[in-house]
């Protein structure tokens, strides 16, 4: 069995890497906290706005 989530979220603006943010971080937008193939448990974060 599988679960597919499709959702709308703000894109935000890319924050400079030099500013101390992790690469790909988007300020005010959606950011993932997962990797492909990763084991995850209910309640852990997939990402955040």
């Amino acid at each position, binding site marked *: *069995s599988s*679960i597919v*989530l499709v959702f709308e979220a*703000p894109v935000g603006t890319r924050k400079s890497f030099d500013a101390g943010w992790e690469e790909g971080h988007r300020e005010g937008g959606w950011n993932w906290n997962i990797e492909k193939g990763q084991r*995850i448990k209910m309640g852990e974060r997939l990402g955040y706005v």
Partner: protein
Amino acid sequence: LRFALHNTKVEWYPIPVGLGIGLLGLLQFYKAQRAERERAEREAAGESLDFEKVPPRPKHRLSGPWQVQIMSTLPLKAMSRLWGRFNEIELPYYLRVPGFKLYSWVFGVNLDEVAEPDLHTYPNLAAFFYRKLKPGVRPLDPDTRAILAPSDGRILQFGLIERGEVEQVKGVTYSLDALLGAATPNHADHTDKFTDHQGEPAQKNEAKMLADAEFAKMNGISYTLPTLLAGDQGGARQRSASIDASTPYKASAEAEVKADLARGDGAPWYAPKPTSNNALYYVVIYLAPGDYHRFHSPVPWVVQSRRHFAGELFSVSPYLQRHLPGLFTLNERVALLGRWRWGFFSYTPVGATNVGSIKVNFDAELRTNSLTTDTAADMAAAAAAKRGEQYPGFVEATYLHASRTLGGHPLQRGEEMGGFQLG
């Protein structure tokens, strides 16, 4: 004879499993061909549609290696139902603990997390499979900006949806329309029809909903997914819910969701969100046989409708996902559609051969992997074909009257929504 019996060496050889699968596939292939021939003959003779003998929905012609081709000819849903029945057989008391411990060892179940530590209390594998966990073993991430994992599992895919397409595996994509359905049955007359269904048996209700869907489809009144994303709730709000009358009203959930939605940009939740800076994202989570199989709400949101796609029940193992394009758009699934603070939100549990039953706690009338709903879908498909139209592929029901102010069923962060059951 005695000499022969005592002195003849007997050797046993297993019949290859592939031979058995091939035979079943061949029989199913001939059966499908015969049904198709009979249907063509009936059509040629100009017979009217007989709902007592509804032809099954035509199966998709699948591309892929021979294993996939053979699998597509098998009666997967019947096999899944049989598997479910088998697992509901009560196990002898003294076999339960060793049996469940063996299962846990093979599939990696952590028995320390199980809510009921006495394994004797689970009468069969189906009950153990749908086990609850101890309170507190799955703490929710404290960051309220986060989307939480809805279940235990493995992340298969995630990313941004571009041009309305979702990537299943690398290089294989399917459209969002195919996954969630495009046209939404929607008509002002719908309200009365749905409201009249209160308290009726599920089977009758399902058939009526099908009739409603057909009615709306016939009248060509619908809105597309982009319209839904843009926040056009006008038509949708005219539809009415009847399907969760058994669900108690939850003031706390409503208050939490309402407060959270209002935080988005200060506008009321139902106001169209500015979509210019928004995008659609997706994530696919695979639940292995040993995983906890109940699923939860990842955010505070409002479920406005559900679409039941009575499709096939292929395995969703990573192997088949690599070899069967559009697997998620073929399998039986329940797409729950609604809104969260940033706009559109959908949650789609997809069934598989061994785990064919999808349960949604607040939808008592939903029946998945059921012969009744399959027949109802076949009827709708046949009726649509008779009118020369394309069957939309799903039956839709709405929850718009489930809440006093939100126009849907509110769900709290981390709240249990339902689960997958064996067979």
